[in-house]
Structures are given as structure tokens and as C-alpha cells.
């Protein structure tokens, strides 16, 4: 959180969900909503960890204008994101793409779950049911439990 604070200061002003600025808005509310949806997944490239929906940086403003322009021209979310990726690389999207390089990232958490469950099952199986008491043990237990023999 300190990071964001510092970034905000680095740009001289505090970002306050900058994308909601009425001066930038598209006239069509449906298109505006779609543009906002896309903003949340686009990184402000000069600010380490902020979406262009939040950032007040100049570059974020330019990117917003670009996305709004494309949305207004009727481009789909996928097309806009593809356009941005071609121009700025994968770095620009906050959702990493699902490809061979990012496989570990996407399936890692679920591999941990499966491995854990596999270990649990192995353990449960290896132990099997609890062993029955031997005759000697039954006799001793009876002796302990029987109040008269105590």
C-alpha cells in the first residue's frame, strides 16, 4: 500500500479512480461501461501496479482515450486487448494469458491442492483400519475396566 501511496505522489497528484472523470466519458453509457470493464484489466505502463482505471498519469489518460476510441468504433473486448498487446506486449494486460510459459502460474495452485489430497489419501490408505486388539490386550483391557479385579 505504501507503494501506491508513493506512486500517487510520484505523479504529483492523488489518483481517484481517474477513469470516472466526466471530461473523458463516452456519450453512450453502454459503451462507456464496456470501456471501464476493459480499463480494469489494462496496466498503466509507467506506474508499477495500477490499472488505467485508477491512474491519473498522463499515459493512462492516453491509453483510456485509445481504448474508448476503439470501443466507440465497435471493437470487441478481445479485439481491443489484442490491439493493446500487439502494441505494448503482454505486460499491458493485468490478467496473464494462458499459454505454455504461464502454465505453472495458472495450474500451480491447483497442483498443490491435488498433491495434498493425494498425500492425504495415501496416508489414509496406508494405515488402513485400526488393528484389532490381540487376545492378550483384550484380557488386560477387561482387567483394567472391571471394577472387581481392581
Amino acid at each position: 500500500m505504501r507503494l501506491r501511496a508513493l506512486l500517487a505522489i510520484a505523479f504529483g497528484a492523488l489518483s481517484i479512480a481517474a477513469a470516472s472523470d466526466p471530461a473523458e466519458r463516452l456519450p453512450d453509457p453502454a459503451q462507456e461501461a464496456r470501456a471501464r470493464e476493459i480499463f480494469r484489466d489494462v496496466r498503466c505502463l509507467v506506474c508499477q501496479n495500477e490499472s488505467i482505471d485508477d491512474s491519473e498519469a498522463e499515459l493512462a489518460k492516453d491509453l483510456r482515450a485509445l481504448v474508448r476510441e476503439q470501443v466507440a468504433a465497435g471493437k470487441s473486448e478481445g479485439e481491443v486487448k489484442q490491439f493493446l498487446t500487439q502494441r505494448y506486449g503482454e505486460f499491458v494486460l493485468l490478467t496473464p494469458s494462458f499459454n505454455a510459459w504461464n502454465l505453472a502460474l495458472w495450474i500451480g495452485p491447483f497442483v498443490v491442492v491435488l498433491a495434498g489430497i493425494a498425500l492425504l489419501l495415501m496416508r489414509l490408505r496406508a494405515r488402513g483400519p485400526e488393528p484389532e486388539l490381540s487376545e492378550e490386550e483384550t484380557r488386560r483391557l477387561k482387567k483394567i475396566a472391571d471394577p472387581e479385579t481392581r
Partner: protein
Amino acid sequence: MIAEAGSFALILALALSVAQVGLSATARWKRSAVLAGAGEGAALAAFLSVAVAFAALMHAFVTSDFSVANVAANSHSEKPLLYRVAGTWGSHEGSMLLWCLALTGFGAAAAGLGRGLPRGLRAVTVATQGLLGVVFLAYTVFASNPLARLTQVPIEGRSLNPLLQDPALAVHPPFLYAGYVGMSVVFSFAVAALVEGRVDAAWARWVRPWTLAAWSFLTVGIMLGSFWAYYELGWGGWWFWDPVENASFMPWLIAAALLHSAVVTEKRGALPGWTVFLALAGFTFSMLGAFLVRSGVLTSVHAFAVDPTRGVLLLMILGVTAGLGFALFAWRAPSLPQGGVFAPVSRESALVLNNILLTAATATVLLGTLFPLIREAATGEAISVGPPYFNLTFTPLMTALMILLPVGPLLAWKRGDAMGSGRRLWWAFAAAVAIGWVVFAAIAPRHGLGAAGVAMGAWLIAGALAEIIERVRLFRAPGRESWRRLWGLPRGAWGMTLAHLGLGVFVLGAVFEVTWKVEAAEALPVGGSLDVGAYHVTLERIDGVEGPNYEAERGLVSVTKDGQPVCTAQPERRLYPAGGQTTSEVGLCYRGMSHIYLVLGERRDAAGQPVWLVRAYWNPWATLIFVGPLIMALGGLVSLSDRRLRLGVARKEAPKGAGA
């Protein structure tokens, strides 16, 4: 003069920590009670020395002694007293001193409160804690001295980042560090258990109070940080999956997992190796957090990113300390006993599932935080891992955990009765589904996922209550019997119920806020207004305000609903001339558990008339997001006060074994 005394005390503390390691280790080797006592004395003395150094730094901040480099860089004579005090831990150097204070403080506490422990275990714990003290004190003394003097004394300091001048953030680091560093005692206990080859029910019971304390502090610390971000940054958000947040969240998740696995080890003697592993992992993640926040590896710009040399040093400390701990684990763990047997449907299995899911959640946060680094190192290509990734991975894992959560406590140890537990929980399940349905039908706009989330929160709360009802046999035993049982419940049981209930409260708040939040923004002249949700917001006035160390424009904003006045708020836009920064003070209107969140933006000109950018959010049930964690931390504290967990008592009661 006082600063020099502080520097001296810090060096003395380092020497005392070295003595602590030597004395306690020799005490273990020679089995000498006298040397062990001396080692514990050294631990206490080291803590007092660090406390003196800390007091000296605080004195320098309070009196604005700008001959101390750290004060000159981070303070200002016009700053209010609270923030001069808080400035002590506001910088890299000061926060490392706070870290050392907590580390030696926990060391002294472990030495002083460990009277019930076996001598060997206690001596090795004190020695390990001393070793951690040596490492971090040496780093502070040689690489980041907070009390270094300047040869040329400036007239005025450069001030603390104004965003950090806030009451919640002033007390946030002490809580956070108490949590981070509290895990060090658990780490030392784990090392001692491995050295002694003793991981049994008694050991698990000694580890629990320290974990509980650290986890509770961490919960409050993270909550305060999140609350600060919520009302100070002016985004209206409260969690950003920022690397710095993740750094504090990972030890929290591990501590939560450890709390549960330690119960299994304590009650059933099972999972000893895993519990020790988590005990080592907790402080490892704390150190990783300290490294990530200070090294600047993840972010090119950061408040604490001072210089790479320090980052490398911290990485070395992390590598050597954790490396030695886990090497010891690899060597000794195979000789640990395997522990009790349990059926697939049992409390043990439920707790193991809890641990699998919490560990996977930690792995997710770790992967999400570090993967961009790994990917860039491997392929030279930069990628971003943002909030959408965590929503797709972390959230399903937590959902699975929360579906299972209410079932676990109702299962018996060893072999549970799934049908029986189902019968006791059916009403909780029915209530949750009904609440979810009502929310789906009644709240506009309709939102299926949101309604499901609300049902989940209700399920957690009802499940926590069902557990208490089951314990007191409400409606099944005579009323007086239930009443007697209610009063007889151990504090630990109340603690668990509160913690689980708090999670449910948090989920309700988070789901409501995220799903049904409304945003509106307009450029308003004085007298202009906008609508947010059912509320009508009017900018009544703009005043110029002169603060102690800032100048501000303060808006008077009135809120009405259906023509009836609701409240007024005063959002501000501040300029701090000392650093030339602008910040925003959010105006918050509390409506029950919901907030109307008002932000005053920059002044613009529209046709010769000044207008101000006003942003308003309707954040339904947002209070619960912060109350939930407080209830969880309260649960931790209540559990901590359980008689069985007190160290001295544990020994006296040990032969009787643990009652559920």
C-alpha cells in the same frame, strides 16, 4: 548525546544477543541450569537495550533533532506530535529497529514465560531466538543504523510522506511487526523441537499461544493497513493484491494453517512433521515480506527501496536463516513419529483439508507475487499478474475452504459421522440458502454471484452458531443444563467460534461492497449536485483551510435522500508544502453499516466558473469488511486467554491429557 547512548545500547544489544546464543547453547550442551538462567537473563537484557535505543530514536523524532540523519530525512518540526512519534518507525531504518525491538521482546517473553518447558527445549529455543536477534541486530548496526549523525545539520527536516500521516497508519506498523516477528518464536520452537527430536502434544500446545498472538496481531495490522488504504487513498478500494499487501498476507495464511494443524498435533499427536514445517515456514514468509518490501526487486519505486546492497543483505539473511531451518528439518523430520490414525471422515481429515487449501492459497499469492520476476528472468519477457489472476485462483480455493469450514468442528476426532453432522447443520444450510435467495430476489440490480456470496457469509455465521448450539445441546438437554454448559465452555471454543464468525462477517461485507457498490463523478460548481444510488449529493461550499503543516481546500458536502437531510461531510484536498505533495482526505458518511464515500478532486475552470471534480461512492455494508477481521482477532485473543494454553498451567495439566 542521547542518540549516541542509543547507538551504544544497540551495539550492547548485539553483544548481549551473542552472549545469549553462547550461554544458552552451552547450557544445552553441558545441561547446566546456571548457564541456561544466564542465557535467559541475556535475552531480557538484550530486549532492554534495544528498548533504550528505540526510546533514543523516538526522543530524537519528538524533539526534532535534525542532526540525526534519519530524523532529518523523515521528520519535520511542524508535524503534529503523534506523527513525530510514529515517525520513529516510518522509515526503513526505524522500522528495522522496531523489528529488532519486537524480536528481542518476543525472545525475552519466551525466555521468561517458558518455565513450564523441558530444560533442553527451552535452552535451544532461547539460543535460536538469540541467533535471529544477532542476525537482525548486526544488520541494523552495520547496514542500517537509525541513529547515525549528520556532520552538517539541516535547519529543517524533509518530512514524513503526508499520506502516511494518519492515525490508522501510525499504529499499523507496530501491530504488523508484532505479528510478523511473533512468528519468530514459533520458528525457534520448531528448531528446538527438531534439535531435541521432540514433537508431541505438549510441544504443539506450547506453540499455539505464540501463533495465536502473532496471528491476532497480524490480523489487526493488515486490517488497519487496508482501512487506511480505503479512506486515505481515495480509490474506494480496500485490497489491491499489491506485492506489499501480499507480503503481509502470506505469513497470515501460514499462521492460520499452523493454528489448525497444531490442534491436530496437540489433540491427536498426528501431523507432527507438517506442523513443524509450517512453524518454520511462518517466519520464513515474514522475512520474505521484509525483503520484498525493502529490496525494490518487485517494484522500481517504493517508499522503502533504499539501496540494492541492503536488499542483498536481507536476502542473505533470509536464505541462511530459512535454509538452516529447513536443512535441519530435512535431516531430522524422518525420525519424527507418525502419529495417530484417523478415518477419511473425521475432524483430522477436515483439518488436513483446511491445511491443503490454505497452503494452496499461500502458494497462489506467492506465485502471483514472484512469477513476473521468474518469467522475466527466464524468458526476458515482462508480464503482469494483477487482481484478475487472484480472483480466478485464490477465490475458488477460499470458496472451497469456506464451504467445508462449518462441517469440520462438528465432526468427531478419529472417526466422524457425516450423516450426524449433516443433521446438525441442515438448518444452517437452509438459512444460508434462504438468505441468498431473498438477496437475489430483493436487491437490485440482480446478481447471482453476489447472492451466492451472501449465502456463503450466512453459512459461515450460521455454521459457527451451530457449533456452539451443538456443544451446549440446546433443545436437546434441559434448558438449565444448556445454560450451565454455555458457561462451562472453554475460552478456546469461544475463540474458534468468534474467529469463524468474523470470517463470515467479513465475507458478507466484502461481497456486498464489491457487488453493489455505486460510483458517480461530476465536475460541480458550488451549489451543484449529483446522484449516487438513492442519495443526492450537493457541494455546498468550498473553504480554504490552514493546517499545522499543510494548506487545504475543504468542501462542505450535504447528502439528502428523498429530500430529507442525511448527513454532511467535509472532504479535503491538501497540499503539503514541505514535500510539495497533494493528498486527499475522504469524507465518509456512515449509514448503518454502509458508507457514502466522498472525494474532492482538482479545481477546474468551466466557462470562467470554477468547478471541482467530486466523486461519490455508495459502499454498502463496507463497515463489515473491517469489523470482520476485528472479530477474528478478538477470537484469537479470547482463545489465548484459555487456561490450557498458559505455559505454566500446561505443565501441571499435562498428565491428564487434553480434553476436547
